[in-house]
């Protein structure tokens, strides 16, 4: 038997790691991966709460989160390719103008 709070702490640690990566990383692809890490942390808390309250709806919502994450990854990586094509850099500090 593992307390639910342990699962929630693990998901909190993953989310905090994702936030830190989002703040300290300068490569746009790594920043994007940090967002995926945050989404994974949230998914874990969904499944843990589903097990605590014996409600399968929590697991269904994980699928919706996964669908949104997959769509976001597809569009986001396309945007990264478009940015790289015009700026020739992946460093977010050098991408500071909306216009070329």
């Amino acid at each position: 038997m593992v307390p639910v709070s342990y699962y929630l702490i693990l998901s909190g640690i993953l989310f905090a790691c994702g936030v830190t990566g989002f703040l300290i990383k300068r490569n746009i692809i790594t920043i994007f991966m940090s967002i995926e890490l945050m989404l994974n942390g949230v998914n874990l808390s969904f499944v843990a709460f589903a097990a605590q309250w014996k409600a399968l709806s929590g697991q269904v919502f994980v699928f919706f989160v996964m669908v949104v994450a997959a769509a976001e990854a597809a569009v986001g990586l396309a945007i990264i390719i478009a940015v790289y094509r015009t700026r020739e850099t992946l460093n977010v500090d050098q991408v500071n103008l909306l216009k070329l």
Partner: protein
Amino acid sequence: MVHLILFLGFGAVCVAGAVNLLVQRHPINSALSLVVVMGSLAAEYLLLGAEFVAAVQVIVYAGAVMVLFVFVIMLLNAGEEEHTKGSRVAMIFGIPGMLVGSLLIAWVLLEHSGTAAVAVGALPGPPKTLGWLLFHDYLLPFEVTSVLVLIAIMGAVVLAAPPESARRRD
């Protein structure tokens, strides 16, 4: 007891992968450690009894999404990230902020949570039951996500296609 050991083992792998993602400088190393995180999260889902979620986690996240990431990293020939003044400032504030935040979350959870514990496979989520829920109670959100995915496909094709001027030159 075995449950706790398994949880701690996979949890340690998970956190190690997440920290490695932050430490590594090259994006491909970060991507591979993200695969480790997602794989061990699938094991945690199995411990909670969510077998179908675990399978989808491996297929969609560790499979499809990460292949997309690795593909883009290879395509753009991404090298090591260079550190700038802004990243040093972010590191000074970001890491202590993360530590304070996660300690706060852990403290609140340990202090204010009940003694509820989950057994191994507490809530089995067989595909049949989940499918019934998905196509019965959550039919409208399901259909809306299909529109979202369609728009995402079209958006990705439009954004990643070479610009008009480049195509005309060919």
